[in-house]
């Protein structure tokens, strides 16, 4: 049964991909080669769509690939089933593992050794988040395409995005009550209006 296989293949991806949604990518590339369920073109479409829709990237990718696979075997209805099964397979191992760790953590919370480990880990974790922020900033503020065409650093800088980003940063500081969702919606509207 193809849908069982789909579930278990994604279960294994979920079990072995560590460190965020894009970490699933090499596994998906391999899955495409081994099973022939979807093509490399599907994968590049999948990345583009996953990154321009809300939600965790790994889940978006699994849903898209699940749909393509299911559709290939049983038409649109199969696509919907596949789109449901793949992300559930992907999240199942993490759910089990994190549940176990979480219970242990609650029990050993007050242990001084746990506290000693987390003393440095919190700073490291924040460092990784800051690095992710730099990564988004690089894409948002700097066009690698424009730079490779003109080799002019300043022509490749996206000033509109920088201004929007600074304004939103000040907005967050000033209006602490406003929900982040509001800023995201404003930014989307500004992006469309001013053709970012």
């Amino acid at each position, binding site marked *: 049964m193809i849908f069982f296989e789909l579930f278990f293949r994604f279960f294994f991806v979920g079990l072995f991909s560590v460190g965020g949604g894009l970490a699933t990518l090499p596994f998906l590339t391999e899955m495409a080669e081994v099973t022939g369920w979807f093509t490399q073109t599907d994968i590049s479409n999948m990345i583009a769509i996953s990154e321009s829709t809300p939600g965790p990237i790994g889940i978006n990718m699994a849903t898209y690939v699940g749909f393509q696979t299911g559709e290939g075997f049983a038409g649109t209805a199969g696509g919907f089933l596949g789109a449901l099964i793949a992300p559930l397979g992907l999240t199942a191992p993490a759910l089990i593992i994190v549940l176990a760790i979480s219970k242990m953590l609650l029990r050993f919370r007050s242990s001084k050794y746990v506290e*000693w480990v987390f003393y440095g880990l919190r700073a490291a974790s924040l460092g990784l988040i800051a690095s992710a922020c730099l990564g988004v900033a690089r894409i948002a503020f700097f066009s690698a395409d424009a730079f490779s065409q003109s080799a002019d650093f300043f022509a490749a800088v996206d000033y509109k995005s920088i201004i929007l980003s600074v304004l939103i940063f000040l907005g967050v500081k000033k209006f602490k009550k406003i929900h982040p969702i509001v800023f995201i919606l404003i930014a989307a509207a500004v992006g469309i209006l001013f053709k970012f």
Partner: protein
Amino acid sequence: MKLLLDLFYIFARIGGFTFGGGYAMLPMLQKEIVDKRKWATQDELMDYYAIGQCTPGIIAVNVATFIGTKLKGFWGALFATLGVITPSIIIIMIIAAFVSGFQDIEAVTHAFNGIRAAVVALILSSVIKLSKKSIVDKITAVIFVLVALLSFFTDISPVLFIIAVAFISLGINMIKAKKMKGGEEK
């Protein structure tokens, strides 16, 4: 049951407005989980991110599972996790079934470029806010800067940073404790 449905709904809302992966979820979690509902403290949120990065699976899902477990055990974990993935599944299903060339639609590109600029500002605000709790002395400041720069400029996996820092942190604190004990004896 009310709490379980709340967990599902709140995480669905977070999942539905997270653009750009699990890290972009941080500002939303801070607002909804820490500030508004007090379901977890800032410290706990950072701990969950740290562990969520080195356990298998998607970071966003792992963090949701942690918070769900803390509040309501297994069922809490299940509802929070299903909540965070539901919007993705629905949106991608619709796009895959009915919209071809979604990523090439001009308005989508413009909207997303705008959103990216907002995401930078939102994550940066969160990092500044969290730094007060996570960066407490010189050692943690050095760890923060080193990890941020190394992770940005190299391809080293986040998992390695977390594991290495876990051991370094434990070591430093053991030495500190030993010194203090030695001091007392004299």
